[in-house]
């Protein structure tokens, strides 16, 4: 199991299109991927779009991503990458 703290850096936050990108990426992996928003005690399954949208994670929200399974190393690397590059949006 791998755990990583991730901050939402893009201006629009985890909006619908960003969430769809995340879910599409997460669904490629066999590992189970959970996202936790501590300040509101919300758990989401990264493979379910409504669940991810329910995080309502705006810019600067802190999230904890937990990945567990055979391909967890690659899954975590790619998810961290997607958040870090702001879902391909400009980071301004």
């Amino acid at each position: 199991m791998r755990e990583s703290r991730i901050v939402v850096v893009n201006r629009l936050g985890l909006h619908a299109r960003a969430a769809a990108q995340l879910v599409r990426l997460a669904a490629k992996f066999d590992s189970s991927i959970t996202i936790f928003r501590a300040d509101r005690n919300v758990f989401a399954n990264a493979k379910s779009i409504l669940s991810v949208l329910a995080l309502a994670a705006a810019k600067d929200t802190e999230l904890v991503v937990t990945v567990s399974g055979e391909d967890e190393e690659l899954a975590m690397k790619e998810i961290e990458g997607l958040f870090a590059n702001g879902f391909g949006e400009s980071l301004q």
Partner: protein
Amino acid sequence: MVITSEPESRSISVSDFLDAISERHPVSSLSSQAALSEHYLTSSRVQKLGLALSGFADKIHKGRIQIYGNSERSYISRLSDIQVSEAYARLDKENISCILITAGIEATEELVEFSEASSIPILATTIPSSDAITAVSNVLSERLAPEVTIHGTLMEVFGIGVLIVGDSGIGKSECALDLITRGHRLISDDSVRIREVGEKLVGDAPSSIRDFIEIRGLGIINAKELFGVSALSPSVEIRFCIEFSEERLGGDRLGLEPNVMPLLKSRIQKYPLPVKPGRNLATLVEASVRVFVSSQDGPKAVENLLHGHANAMNATIKN
């Protein structure tokens, strides 16, 4: 998935409290948005401001609503101007989180000045103190209850709240759709907010995804538009949980082993249902509700079966 994590002691901003209570009661604000957002409520109990105004200022508890009603008004009206300013000067500004004026009483100049100088928010309502106190405690005990949001689908089946959990893509949403077409009601799909109010677990939908279902192949659909208001329910008490899983059930084939799911500080009955092509999940969920309801009173079917079976065996031996 860990879903028992203990939330810290909870608080709600006066601004959020106002949004919540004004949905049900005529309550409005006399203060700036900044004052409303800066102050927090931490207890569902309320206090009458009268005690503090009359000199017992140390009796004020931080994080509670202070009620200013008819008794406070008549007390203040009997004081001289100097005594009134003294009464307000004595108040412990640090510990007053919010003042609620009840019974449609008009805020006095001194009270407004006190609120502006200390940036303590004032709310006002037309309902009398006794009713306002009940309304405030109800809203706050709901809002301050421990809360968690988890991945799952919540349905009301035969009037019973059933939480359905399981991996993504296992068929929870399709099952919800099936249950809706059979006349049952959806509370929330894919994400359920659960609050522990008293001894009950109450579930509803996170506001951002209320009314929506995701059906693979069709995308996100609006259940209210497609099926009408009767297909949805705003919230329900969660009585038990069903876990869909792809694993083959090796163990319990009789349904005798107790299976529980911890949620916040409670534990609820859990029925694990293996998912396979050809199994009608909606029928199985309906049957689970019947099993759950009948298990609440009287012996379980399986105990009757075992009893009857034992009798039949004994009869065979005797013959």
